[in-house]
């Protein structure tokens, strides 16, 4: 297929959409800087209003960028000599490495050089860099790491199959106040990113009754029922997560992280069993082959790369944490999600929601 000319890709006149600069921490991901750069470079071709700020080793960035199709008018590079590796302890690493790419990127966002941060590196370091650099939104005491999970039912004007779960690890011992804030933040995010004007919100507990669960969950349940503008549907159980009973599921970081890992474990086990069945009997192999089209379709619909990454909610700036295994496509989508959150002023939306609570 013929490549479009630059003029065809980029209407020159300044349109109504204001430019958004996304800082990409290009270091520390599983696939190395090139995948991050490739994904972000694609944004500069696809979306005329998104500019990419690459933070990391300049030599590596320049080397990769020189052979990747991009629009240099929408690219800027900021050199950072260090980075936090996946195996490092976040606090110690950030204390030692003042020039770590994720910290420098967060500082650039805080200084207004970019409006959002995307990183596929060490999650803890990313969250901590933001905590040390960004401010919490008034009314938010602790930030939440949200993630999306493919579900049976869809939502929003784009039939989004992903529901949002938060917190999945940023705040291990959340209070009732925190859970209420998480609910408001998750709903605001779902409204903007999933284009779901009235998302259903639920608390994760060990029973659907309002009295079930530890005191903080019971208290949060009671308070959430009175939050204006929030469609709180009460408690849900673990079984409701993959069903998609609620568009936003709220829990503390400890429970959320255990759930997330369990869901990942179930997925891996199912895949392992399918491989076992494939090898074990010819008849089973034939059955799996016949179902392969359906499996592929499910894989397409539930492909996490289309979502790009998980937001850290609660800060006055946007941080999208892309999966460590993210390839270019996931990074492109993480950048789009970040730009969408900026364009729709997610922080303000959360703040307004919290005022109503």
């Amino acid at each position, binding site marked *: 297929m013929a490549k479009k*000319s630059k*003029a065809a890709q980029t209407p*020159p006149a300044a349109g109504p959409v204001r430019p958004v600069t996304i800082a990409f921490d290009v270091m520390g991901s599983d696939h190395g800087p090139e995948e991050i750069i490739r994904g972000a470079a694609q944004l500069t071709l696809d979306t005329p209003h998104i500019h990419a700020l690459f933070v990391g080793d*300049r030599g590596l960035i*320049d080397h990769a960028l020189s052979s990747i199709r*991009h629009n240099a008018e929408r690219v*800027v*590079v900021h*050199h950072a000599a260090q980075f936090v590796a996946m195996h490092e302890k976040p606090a110690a690493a950030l204390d030692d490495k003042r020039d770590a790419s994720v910290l420098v990127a967060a500082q650039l966002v805080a200084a207004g050089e970019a409006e959002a941060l995307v990183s596929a590196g060490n999650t803890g370091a990313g969250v901590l860099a933001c905590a040390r650099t960004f401010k919490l939104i008034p009314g938010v005491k602790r930030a939440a790491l949200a993630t999306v999970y493919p579900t049976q039912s869809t939502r929003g004007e784009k039939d989004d199959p992903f529901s949002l779960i938060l917190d999945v690890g940023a705040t291990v011992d959340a209070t009732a106040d925190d859970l209420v804030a998480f609910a408001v933040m998750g709903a605001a995010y779902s409204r903007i990113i999933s284009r779901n004007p009235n998302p259903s919100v639920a608390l994760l507990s060990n029973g659907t009754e309002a009295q079930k669960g530890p005191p903080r969950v019971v208290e949060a349940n009671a308070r959430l029922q009175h939050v204006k503008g929030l469609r709180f549907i009460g408690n849900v159980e673990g079984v409701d997560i993959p069903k998609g009973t609620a568009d936003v599921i709220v829990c503390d970081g400890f429970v959320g992280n255990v759930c997330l890992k369990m869901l990942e474990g179930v997925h891996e086990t199912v895949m392992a069993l399918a491989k076992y069945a494939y090898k074990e009997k010819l008849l089973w192999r034939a059955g799996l082959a016949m179902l392969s089209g359906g499996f592929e379709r499910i894989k397409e619909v539930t492909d996490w790369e289309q979502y790009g990454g998980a937001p850290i909610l609660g800060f006055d700036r946007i941080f999208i944490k892309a999966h460590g295994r993210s390839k270019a496509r996931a990074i492109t989508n993480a950048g789009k999600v970040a730009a969408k959150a900026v364009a729709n002023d997610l922080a303000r939306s959360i703040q307004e929601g919290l005022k109503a609570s």
Partner: protein
Amino acid sequence: MSLVDRIDPVPPKRIYRWDLDKTYLQTDFDSLRQLVRTALQKAGEKKAVPGAAALIRELKARGDSRLCIVSGSPTQMRAVLSEKLKLDGVEFDELVLKDNVSNLLRGRFKALRGQVGYKLPVLLESRARAPVDSEEVLFGDDAEADAFIYSLYADMVARRVNEPVVYRVLEASEVYPDDITRIMRQWEKIGVSDPVRRIFINLDRLTPPAFFGKYGPRVVPIFNYFQAALVLMADGHLTATQVVKVAVEMIQTAGYNLLTLSNSFQDLMRRGLPMAQVAQALTEALSGPQALLNSVRPVPDILAAFTKRIAALGAIPAPPPVRDVDYLSLIDDARPRDKKGKKR
């Protein structure tokens, strides 16, 4: 032009050679429909690449240069192209267009799409008429074979390539034997000199810059004409004020802004082009009482944006190494796009 100039024009010190489609003009002819639309466009409907007209006007402003245009557009378009250039305030000295009707009537079908057999002899003929000591800067694009043809032309004039290599290159490029003879004759007539200082390639198709690394640092891929103006300022062809005039046209007519211009500046720095002194001179020009960009944005913002782009890089990168061009290995670049074996 004064009477004296008309009788005995000042010999040009600098020659600027331009391609038209996708270099000066924003042209889409990747499909038959686009080709027909381009052919039927009136002068007023044609759009120049942002900054191109301003750059040419500034390059010509010194009065000691010549603008020579060689385009693959058919000769039937001379009137409309001349009118378009006139509308843009661009005064050319040569405008050579391709006689495709003649090619068609003579059954020379390869010549219809071929670039090497058309442009190379035209460039050599024009060079034969130029003073030996005149410098040249060439402008092309990444859609066809401009980097290849311009580099070969430069190295032929400088005698950095020998006859057997040129023969093999021309044969491999499917140039007709009579055109090969014409090229070799023209080449013989040209005095030895090394006039080509820069070859700018407008990245219309956003080809990654590293693709042109094999042509050496003389070839500078550019994302816009502000970048060309900056490099030409570093090379002594333009003043800081003239560069600012190019930027102003791009801001006023094509939606460029401080962000895109400062990013373009940093892109050149990252590719090792000598921008540090340019930045200093631009700072002085912008700080002066005649600051042109004042009407667009406060000067301190502009200076801060450019200073940040420099500081963000840490150490200044080394310039790219000079290297001989191996034309025989690059022969694929010389073929029409639909025949290229490699994908960019």
